[in-house]
């Protein structure tokens, strides 16, 4: 009577078969998850609750999934100082005047938990994602030999927070024309004690020899 019976049964039983395979793989995955990430402490779990409470995923991505409107937060806790992250969460514009993230009313306690959660997720084994930028090194190389100051700039990872000619981070001020804004005394003093020159600055103390700081300052002064 039903000429399509064969293919109908293939649909029903085939579908159930693939669901069964999926269920087995899911069971195995769940068994493996605890070995692929650090232990989930109560603080980490509390941080995850804070993550959900403020609908962070409504703008950010995490593990690459989310809303693509703001940076991915999977590895943030490894890249930024935790104190900075806490201050940023409590009041983004105080920590970084250029921040577009709104102040959500996150308390100090909640910020601490959230950072613990972000620290946990940054240590999850994600099969190598996100990959290291393969063009990063060539893009930074200028045509000529690097000056001593440029080498120090790279070795201290200044570009993690600062931008030079469009390349680098946005956490600190853009340094493309810093040489026309600041003089030698200011720059050197600031390297040795950032907070004395810029109150509430999150810039860490530059730990380098006096000679290196001198060369870094020379380099900064060429940026006009």
């Amino acid at each position: 009577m039903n000429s399509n019976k064969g293919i109908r049964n293939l649909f029903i039983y085939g579908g159930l078969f693939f669901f069964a395979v999926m269920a087995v793989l899911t069971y195995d995955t769940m068994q493996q998850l605890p070995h692929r990430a650090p232990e989930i402490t109560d603080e980490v779990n509390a941080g995850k609750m804070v993550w959900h409470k403020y609908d962070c995923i409504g703008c950010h991505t995490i593990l690459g999934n989310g809303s693509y409107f703001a940076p991915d937060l999977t590895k943030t806790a490894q890249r930024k100082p935790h104190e900075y992250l806490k201050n940023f969460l409590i009041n983004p514009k105080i920590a970084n005047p250029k921040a577009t993230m709104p102040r959500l009313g996150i308390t100090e306690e909640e910020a601490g938990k959230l950072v613990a959660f972000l620290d946990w997720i940054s240590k999850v084994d994600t099969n190598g994602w996100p990959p290291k930028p393969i063009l990063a090194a060539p893009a930074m190389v200028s045509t000529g030999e690097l000056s001593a100051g440029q080498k120090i700039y790279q070795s201290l990872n200044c570009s993690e927070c600062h931008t030079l000619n469009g390349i680098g981070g946005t956490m600190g001020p853009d340094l493309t024309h810093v040489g026309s804004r600041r003089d030698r005394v200011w720059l050197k003093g600031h390297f040795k004690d950032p907070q004395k020159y810029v109150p509430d600055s999150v810039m860490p103390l530059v730990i380098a020899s006096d000679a290196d700081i001198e060369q870094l300052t020379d380099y900064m002064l060429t940026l006009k």
Partner: protein
Amino acid sequence: MTIKYNSQKIAQNFYTFAVLLFLLQAVVGIIAAIQFIWPDFFILNFNTIRTIHINAMVVWLLAGMMGAAYYVVPEESETELWSEPLAKIQFYLTVVATLSVLLGYVWMGLDPQANKTVFGAGLLNEGREYIEAPRWADILIVASLLLFLLNCFMTVLKTRKWTGIQGTLLGGLVMLTVLYIPGMFYTRSMVADQYWWWWVLHLWVEGAWEVVAGALIAFMLMKLVGAERGVVEKWMYAEVCLVLFTGILGTGHHYYWIGTPPYWLWIGGVFSSLEPVPLLIMVWDALRTTRENRNIENRAGMYYITGHVIFTFVGAGIWGLIHTLPAVNKWTHGTQITTAHAHLAFYGAYVLLILSIIYTTLPAIRGIKVYNDSRAFKSFWLMTISMIFIALTITGAGIVQTIMERLMGLDYIAVKSGYNMWFWIFRAIFGAGFLIGTVVFVKDYFSLGKEQ
């Protein structure tokens, strides 16, 4: 064109609700597009706007599917709906649940602290993309779905006339309801959280929803071109068969980088690469059927369904395939490439599906013989061309982001608010074009058959 059973009219309630939410989705979509250019543009932050944008979509597509089922099931069972009052109650339950959730989102948008944590989940927003609806709303939604399924199955049992189309449609809807459950429990691990979250998301849009779509396409091809049931059902089974065979394990393409074991790279890569195959069969089936049957009364319905199968293949198939292999996805995962794919796929696979079913069944519900279909064509082209360009601009932004952020190591914000700015501006302009198309459609929906 007239309906055979009076209770099929209930479909129109669901259609109207769907159409209004579609308009809301397009309006907030524009706000979100402008916020990519000026983040402080609106009183509500991006997260609230984006939540409304995607939740309105999920609900209106589901409402459209429910309306379609209320139309299809009585016709296939050759009897009135089991209980019309129950269908009405279920309709209002859906409306009340949706509007309360919406109000909750707005409230939270104005005062983030209002989202208190109760029993481990947010009172107004669960903070999980697409399934942000709080737990109490989940329960209402499932209750509504169960009442709906009860009504459909009781209708079938009245005459015990099972057809392939109706069985597949209800099978897809049962699968959809069951698969909402993995999104309803809390897990301490964010990895497990996303793992189960994809069970809902992926197995909906690349599983259950496609089964529903397969059944509805078969029904529409019969209605629109008078195709023969046996043939249409055979191809329908071939499609939904391959949808499940490729789509279920294709879930693995979401498990590459979220902290799950590496064997998913293989499973996800192989099976998700095959996911476009049933979509291609769908295109071939629709075009072949149309060519063989040339006396088409309802041109608008045919137009939309052809657009639907083609853009399902382009948006879901091709735009998905380009970044589904692990070697590519490693660089593109979490970039705007995904956003481009999502826009074109949802538009092609589901927006056009629901609009096709509306244009196929609405003339009969309203008892119209002939209607002016010029507005239907106008809205189709306005929306489709705009969506193609929305997808292309976002794809451009995604390529720039992949190269500059992922390959060269530039900062996310520097790329987004610097290099990609022109893409956002063009996207907003084409978004406005899409909104105009939507308005034309909404106007057509409300005036169809009611003007001379």
